């Protein structure tokens, strides 16, 4: 058992640790100041504005994804429509973002928007996050005893009450997961913002542009900050899961 766990920890390290190699460059000391590049990037106006735009956009998209994925995920309880939703999940999840973004751009032009419009970027980002959201919620529904819903229907509970009083409370953790996942996916998304954001610069665009041109080490600090935020959100998710499991074990006792 133990050698296998060591092996898996080694694999995990191999897959995850190189992501942190930017930290190595970001702490390069100049005049003994290891935080010099961090101070420099935090003074960079473009970085700060790109960061806030990405942060606010991610919050909006996460809320929209929760609403739409919850509505669409209710198709889980009807087999025929569930099959159609699966096809849509495949379309949205597997189509290369570059082609899909250009199609959305074309759609915007048909409707009459010749200049870039954030509405279409939001539409594209929600479309990107929806498959993940629906799958997370469906995974939760899989573990809900179907007799719970059948019994409540037999007892004459209205559809709205079943959704609001049974399904929604039971899916609370899944909905938090959808929120966190969508937040991270949007916060770090590059291709869609590249094609659809127009003159508005998002964090991923800023980082991609600067990293490709290789300006100075402050960009490594910017990249390290984005990785740190991703790590914090993942740790928060882990803590929520732990809290939930300790609550349920306390309830069982």
């Amino acid at each position: 058992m133990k050698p296998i766990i060591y092996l898996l920890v080694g694999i995990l390290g191999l897959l995850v640790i190189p992501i942190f190699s930017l930290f190595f460059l970001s702490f390069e000391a100049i005049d003994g100041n290891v935080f010099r590049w961090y101070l420099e990037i935090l003074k960079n106006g473009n970085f700060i504005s790109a960061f806030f735009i990405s942060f606010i956009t991610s919050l909006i998209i996460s809320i929209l994804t929760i609403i739409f994925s919850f509505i669409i995920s209710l198709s889980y309880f009807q087999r025929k429509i569930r099959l159609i939703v699966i096809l849509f999940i495949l379309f949205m999840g597997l189509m290369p973002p570059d082609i899909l973004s250009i199609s959305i751009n074309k759609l915007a032009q048909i409707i009459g928007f010749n200049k870039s419009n954030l509405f279409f970027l939001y539409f594209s980002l929600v479309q990107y996050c929806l498959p993940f959201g629906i799958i997370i919620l469906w995974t939760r529904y899989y573990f809900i005893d179907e007799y719970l819903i059948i019994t409540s229907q037999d007892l004459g509970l209205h559809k709205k009450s079943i959704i609001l009083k049974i399904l929604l409370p039971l899916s609370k953790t899944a909905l938090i997961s959808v929120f966190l996942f969508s937040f991270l996916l949007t916060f770090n998304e590059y291709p869609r913002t590249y094609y659809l954001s127009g003159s508005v610069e998002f964090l991923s665009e800023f980082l991609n542009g600067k990293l490709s041109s290789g300006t100075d080490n402050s960009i490594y600090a910017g990249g390290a900050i984005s990785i740190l935020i991703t790590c914090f959100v993942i740790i928060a998710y882990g803590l929520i899961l732990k809290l939930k499991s300790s609550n349920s074990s306390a309830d069982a006792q």
Partner: protein
Amino acid sequence: MEKKLIDIRIIYCLLIILALPFIAMVFFSFVANSNGFIEINFQGFQELSKSVRLQEIRAICYRSLIVSFLSTIIAYLISYLLVIYTNKKFQIFFLILITLPFLANEAVRVFSWQNVLAENGLFNKFISSFYKNEVTIFSSASDINIYTTMVITCIPFAIFICTATLKIIPDIYWKVSNDLKLHQITKFIKIGLPLSKTSIYASMIITFFVSFALSSEVSFLGGATKVSTRGFVLSLMSANRFDSIFAFGVILLVFIILFYLAFFVFNKLKF
């Protein structure tokens, strides 16, 4: 018993809105606007059939095939070890941490890997420190760094699919195999593999599409000469061949539908 919790029309409405970009894609791959008149043609597809374009598509497909094959094999082995030999707590810890590479910023992730795997990167420097001469294992000329990065990006997707399937195999199979004192390798070949065939196919196809869309890995680690989906799309854009981009999308759409139908038929036959 069907449990209708929501009016189907609401879901259909949302799905139609979500389908609009795909409808536009199909429409504009066949329809062109010439001198104010709309005409149906196949010029977009004809452009894709040119040998230069075909060569680029072939290169992307070939690379995606190798990446999907490698990442599925590695991911399945990891998932099997994870599900069979570790406890639930470790599994959750592992699965949460493995999401980090694909949730991280694309540019930062790829640049970090470039930092490690480039010709003058940390890995080559580390290996060279043991020898008198300079050793170059990873280089953009051999493509090995592109493949490594792409495989590592695709592995989490495949691990999720394979782990989910292995987790739903009834415990009784493993208990019986333990009672029969089957060798670990026999257990893997006779029980694990046959019962996860569907997930292996699914993860192969999904990682194929995922790696098909990965472009930053190629441009950061392979240089400007290496072809990627983004590079291909941008070259069509600069040639003002938007119809070909949409035609390319339609071809992929057809492949996704075929994949869906194959799985639908497979599951119908199975159950």
